[in-house]
């Protein structure tokens, strides 16, 4: 999308690469959670059976999990993603105020993402390598001390429960916010929303426009 399109009523929030990354991760997470819960909860295990098959699906999906992120970062298409990773990682004093006031303060300087969205993204980013490594230790345990296998299981289980809770809240939030949902499905948000709710992001978009740089895609 070019600067011309930005002058219309829509602003690009997530470019094609970011949306592809989000939905690839989402699909893998859902498969991993479904198979993981079936392996973990005894009532489901005995209901579904086929433990070996479920285990294989879980392990293969887990091994695939880092690939979308690596692929999204691997080429010249990563510009929008990189800018957003930077935005998600960097916190201002206002983000802290927004978080401690549960969203009542810090609105006037809101950037592209609020502190809750930042926390969500950061937590998920931390979960991917942790679940990947602990899951690998659980699967290929023989080179390690047995206590590591127990420790890896401990970390994997607790983290997966926390991640399931975070993803549930994330989905509920998205479903209650049609604008956000549309942004991740089609990529854009109305310009009025940006101006009203994301003044700092609006300024960034404007600065990019004036520099003549493309905002995305």
């Amino acid at each position, binding site marked *: 999308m070019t600067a011309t399109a930005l*002058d219309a009523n829509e602003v690009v929030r997530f470019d094609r690469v970011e949306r592809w990354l989000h939905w690839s991760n989402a699909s893998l997470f859902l498969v991993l959670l479904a198979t993981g819960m079936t392996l973990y909860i005894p009532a489901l295990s005995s209901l579904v059976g086929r433990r*070996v098959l479920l285990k294989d699906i879980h392990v293969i999906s887990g091994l695939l999990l880092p690939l979308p992120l690596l692929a999204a970062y691997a080429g010249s298409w990563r510009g929008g993603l990189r800018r957003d990773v930077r935005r998600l990682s960097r916190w201002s004093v206002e983000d802290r105020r927004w978080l401690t006031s549960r969203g009542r303060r810090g609105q006037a300087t809101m950037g592209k993402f609020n502190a809750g969205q930042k926390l969500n993204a950061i937590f998920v980013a931390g979960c991917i390598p942790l679940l990947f490594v602990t899951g690998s*230790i659980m699967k290929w345990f023989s080179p390690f001390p047995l206590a590591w296998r127990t420790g*890896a299981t401990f970390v994997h289980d607790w983290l997966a429960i926390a991640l399931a809770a975070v993803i549930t809240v994330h989905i509920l939030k998205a479903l209650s916010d049609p604008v956000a949902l549309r942004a991740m499905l089609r990529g854009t948000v109305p310009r009025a929303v940006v101006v009203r709710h994301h003044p700092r992001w609006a*300024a960034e978009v404007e600065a990019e426009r004036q520099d003549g740089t493309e905002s995305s895609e």
Partner: protein
Amino acid sequence: MEPIVPDPPVFPVEDRPVGRRVVLGMLGLGGLGVLFGAKVQSGMAAFLSPLTRNDRTGLTSLLPSSDRFRIYSVTESMPSRTDAQYRLVVDGAVDQSLELDLADLRDRLPQTNLTRDFQCVTGWRVADVPWRGVKLADLLATVGVAPDATHVRFYSFDGVYTETLTLEQAQRDDVLVAHEMLGGPVTQPHGGPVRLYVAPMYGYKSLKWLDRIEVVRALDAPTDPGYWENLGYDTDAWVGESNGLDDAPTA
């Protein structure tokens, strides 16, 4: 062309790379969890088990550190045999082979009750599990073991899992052919209708879905010494004295 923001306000510039720090912190904590999680987990189990026992919803029993059984099976689907279909064969180097049904095991042979902890080699432990069944020693006495027999081999009706004990281990008082655990019949996920319970050893010795007990004169490949033993676990699986672990003994 109208600018999006007429008068850009001044935004705070003291942004900190919190994301990188949080992710690195998570990785650090995760590493510590892998190294010391086994110890933390046993501490938490001690704290959680009273909660789990009084929790009628059963939700706390789903927490990773809680005092609960995890259901493992090595085959495609969980093997199933009804009480009526169930038969246990005892044969091999014995005077008189036997085929027992569930009523034989439940009503016609002397019963032994045992309450012991169940300790899995992967770290979880369930305290004070009540077991009921026939002492393996009694069963072996009934069939008459040949004088040159050395080991006992167990087969699961999942068709894959096997286990072995030395004759001496098999004749201990705390090794049961169990048809009840946790106050009721052994359920399918727990290895019902009949499973082995080897109290002093790690859980993988307590073979589920017991199909056949064979007294042998020597251990031979490929099934021996057992399913997990062939994947590197210790054959003499005493709790706290094998597999490089120091759990509190269960017997």
